């Protein structure tokens, strides 16, 4: 077997090239977003992280597949320990205790925990004796996700916690969970949102959800219990909303209508839309985006990084980012069926779940389709831990492909 053929067989070029393209786009965007501010520092740090990231990616791509499987539970345990540790000894940045200081670099265990959670979930779900039809197993799966979620909520970092919940759906679906199960998990959330919008939407959604639950019902008692829970959550939402801190209420109100408070919670969204919209087809030119360069968008090198290519390179730039992510996700899902090992299959879907959740929420927020939840856009946003965990996941994805014939 020639060197080239070996590589073609073992090396997932498509994923690799897409990721490298995204990382380069990210560096370009971070440079522009931080240009003139603390430019050199942020840009230089991101360059270092990107270089480290490529190393981590290659390491994960070539580590023996068996070790991946074997290390799933220990790694998960380690990451939970780190999450507990960060609460006890971590460093607080803008209200969240989510960082470890390692010399000059900072490290976020909640990012590392994404990788380990994906691996641990896959390890559990791929066991021949585990089936999601059993409530006991379902609870174990839910518990494996809930544990890091609760620890992360305690930091508090709601955005990252939400990501874990969203990624659970494709994984459960992949594992053969029934429509009823998926619906039962979604229902309280949907009803809660509807309750915030008003009484009429609340009733419509409750009735709609009730009908869906009835149609997909498996067990009368469980159905009734889920339905009651859903109504209870919906009704208590209003009182929970009133119990929230004013700034939290503002955030919710601003999502429902950003123009309510254009200088407060809605400000980011409005400015983000102005940046994206004013980009037009071809954009204002690199480093020429007035919204970006004149700091109209807060968090522009982290959470609102998507505005940078959209403003400076226009529709072309934004569409390029979307296409790259779509290719990445579709390829990732395809790897989920290309592998022989069930563990590998679940890992692939779990990873796609995490990346997909990030893309969905981050870009959805920038485009004012979803509420403002502070999470980074994978590979593009400034931030070392997120970039490293993303690269780690991509390396693992490549590893799965390379070892697709192994059981």
């Amino acid at each position, binding site marked *: 077997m020639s060197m080239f053929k070996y590589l073609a067989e073992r090396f997932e070029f498509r994923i690799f090239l897409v990721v490298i393209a995204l990382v380069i786009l990210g560096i370009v965007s971070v440079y522009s977003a931080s240009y003139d501010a603390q430019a050199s520092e942020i840009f230089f740090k991101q360059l270092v992280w990107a270089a480290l990231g490529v190393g981590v990616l290659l390491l994960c791509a070539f580590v023996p597949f068996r070790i991946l499987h074997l290390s799933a539970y220990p790694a998960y345990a380690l990451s939970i320990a780190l999450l507990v540790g960060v609460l006890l000894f971590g460093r607080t940045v803008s209200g969240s205790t989510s960082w470890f200081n390692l010399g000059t670099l900072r490290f976020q265990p909640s990012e590392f925990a994404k990788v380990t959670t994906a691996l641990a979930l896959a390890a559990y779900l*791929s066991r021949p004796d585990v089936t999601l039809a059993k409530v006991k197993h379902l609870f174990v799966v839910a518990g494996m996700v809930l544990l890091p979620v609760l620890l992360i909520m305690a930091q508090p970092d709601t955005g990252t916690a939400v990501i874990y919940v969203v990624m659970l759906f494709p994984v459960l679906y992949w594992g053969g969970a029934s429509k009823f199960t998926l619906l039962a998990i979604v229902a309280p959330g949907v009803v809660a949102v509807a309750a915030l919008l008003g009484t009429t939407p609340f009733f419509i959604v409750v009735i709609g959800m009730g009908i869906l639950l009835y149609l997909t019902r498996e067990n009368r008692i469980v159905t009734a219990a889920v339905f009651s829970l859903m109504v209870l959550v919906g009704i208590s939402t209003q009182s929970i909303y009133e119990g929230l801190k004013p700034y939290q209420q503002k955030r919710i109100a601003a999502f429902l209508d950003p123009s309510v408070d254009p200088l407060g919670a809605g400000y980011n969204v409005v*400015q983000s839309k102005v940046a994206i*919209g004013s980009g037009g087809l071809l954009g204002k030119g690199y480093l020429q985006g007035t919204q970006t360069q*004149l*700091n*109209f968008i807060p968090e522009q090198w982290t959470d609102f990084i998507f505005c940078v290519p959209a403003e400076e390179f226009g529709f072309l730039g934004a569409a390029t980012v*979307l296409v790259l992510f*779509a290719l990445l996700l*579709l390829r990732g899902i395809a790897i989920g069926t290309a592998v022989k090992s069930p563990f590998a299959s679940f890992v692939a879907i779990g990873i796609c779940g995490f990346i997909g959740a990030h893309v969905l929420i981050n870009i959805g927020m920038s485009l004012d389709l979803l509420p403002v939840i502070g999470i980074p856009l994978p590979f593009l946003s400034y931030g070392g831990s997120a970039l490293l965990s993303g690269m780690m996941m991509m390396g693992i994805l490549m590893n799965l492909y390379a070892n697709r014939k192994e059981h």
Partner: protein
Amino acid sequence: MNVIEDISVYRKRRTLFVVVLLVFFLFFGRLYQLQLIYKDEYGRRSEKNIVRVISTEPVRGYMYDRTGTRVVDNRPAFTVTIMPFEFDRGTAPNLARLLSLDLEVLLERLEKGKMYSRFTPVKIKRDVDFKSLSALAEQRDRFPGVGYQSESKRFYPTRARATHILGYTKEISEQQLQLLGKEYAQGDVVGSTGLEAQYEKALRGAKGHQFSIVNAYGQVLGSFEEGNLDVLPKEGKDLILTMDFALQAVAESLMADQRGALVALDPRDGGILALVSMPDYDLSLFSGVTPPGVWRRLHSDTAAPLFNRATMTRYPPGSTFKMVLALAALDNHIVSPSWRVNCTGVFYVGRKPFADLHVHGSVNMVEAIQKSCNVYFYELMMRTGLDNWHQSGRAFGFGQRTGIDLYEENTGLLPSTAYMNQRYGEKGWTRGYLPSLAIGQGELGVTPLQMAYYAMAIANRGVTHQPHAVQAIIDRAMSREDRLSYETRSMDIRPELWEPIREGMRRVVEEPGGTGGLARIAGIPSGGKTGTAQNPHGPDHAWFVGFAPLEEPEIAIAVLVENAGFGGTRAAPIAGACMERYLHAASIRRQAEQPAVPIASVSTLPTTRAVYRSEQP
């Protein structure tokens, strides 16, 4: 669980593919909507985000009197500002004490400004006195972020106040803002009364606009489009008044502590020499920040200092009006000047008696004017009739506006047959109403300005000029002087008819037995007429109208002193003193052979303005 052998895995994969593609299609659709459909809208908004227009205020035009003295000037006023970003809140109580400002007011203004931008200075207190300002400057280090801006406010350098003719400027009100439209903005200063209001457009100039690029914090980063779109402010134009502020000062001091008005004009061109309305107030009360107490006090003062008595009152003129009837009778060939009436001190219309103060015996027209004999004029009115009298009054400008370039002017009231019919019904009034009108009483209203105009008409033998306070407008930027032109009218009266009237008025002042002897000017013959107008609300109003010199007159004057008593004792001396001072000064000026309006004064601009001008391309 073995996923791979499960055939349904391909169905699941398809579902996930579809979900991913749906989400991305949604994103594409949204991108298309924002970036391609609404591009222009968002483009405009992004431009609006970064471009800030800063208006630069023009310097308001000056006013000069006829001798070239600057009578309305500008002075810098200092506004203390705080840049919220640099401000140390701990220093707020000390700062408030230094500015004698309420701490809460200071913090409230700071918070309001902070919401707008943390990098834009917030105006904390306007028109801060120099003492506080220098104290602040000495302790600069102790108050980070505290600075001041220099603005200009009106300053009145002369001794004369000229309150009602100059008028005041003040911060624009909501209503004015809506009325005056888009050239004005909140916080602008606008001429509100007098010449300031009348010539607002010329005095104001035009605002300049500076376009700057700002960042999200409002920090100015530089000029927009290299400043090519910027517009420099256009300075306000200057007014050259017809007024003589030396005379104005004299007139004001003579009228001090009285209620009433004085109007003096130049009968050769209609230019106002002095215009006094008493009580007056200090215009500089309005030039900075007007304390609410001052405003309330002026408004609620029963003496109505804000009211311009010279152009807005509507009092009966009393005997000063008698020449209107005399001229009507002569012009309509009702009587000749030598026609005589025997004054017995009382006159009857039917059974109703009309009194005179004295028994004058047999008087002709000249003597009747000289002695102000009522019976003569009662008799004359019955012969002349309301219509002829009204026509004569109209010709003298009563019952209509004189057309002065002042913001407010009353028409007064000159009754006609039509008016009386309308007011009382055709049968509702009788000839019994006429004697009162003959002596300037009853339903008759005039303004002191109209009376000065009337004096001018007699002084000029029927030639009148539109009264005005501004003779020229100077545009310094263009080095242009626009002389304003005013209307001149000539009454259609045979010239010889003026002589008995003028002779009567000469005797009023110059001859023993005249009622206005106190108006006499040493060495200069003059003419005048006194009036004592009854007033249902209190003592009589004293009037005097006159002009001097008798031939080739240079000043015509009307004086009203409210509730003072006899015109001859209260109004005549004021008029006489004014005319004397004016003519004396004018003769000294003539001897020195200086031009009446030295244009040289216009070129002596303060250095700051000269520097400013040199910046213009």
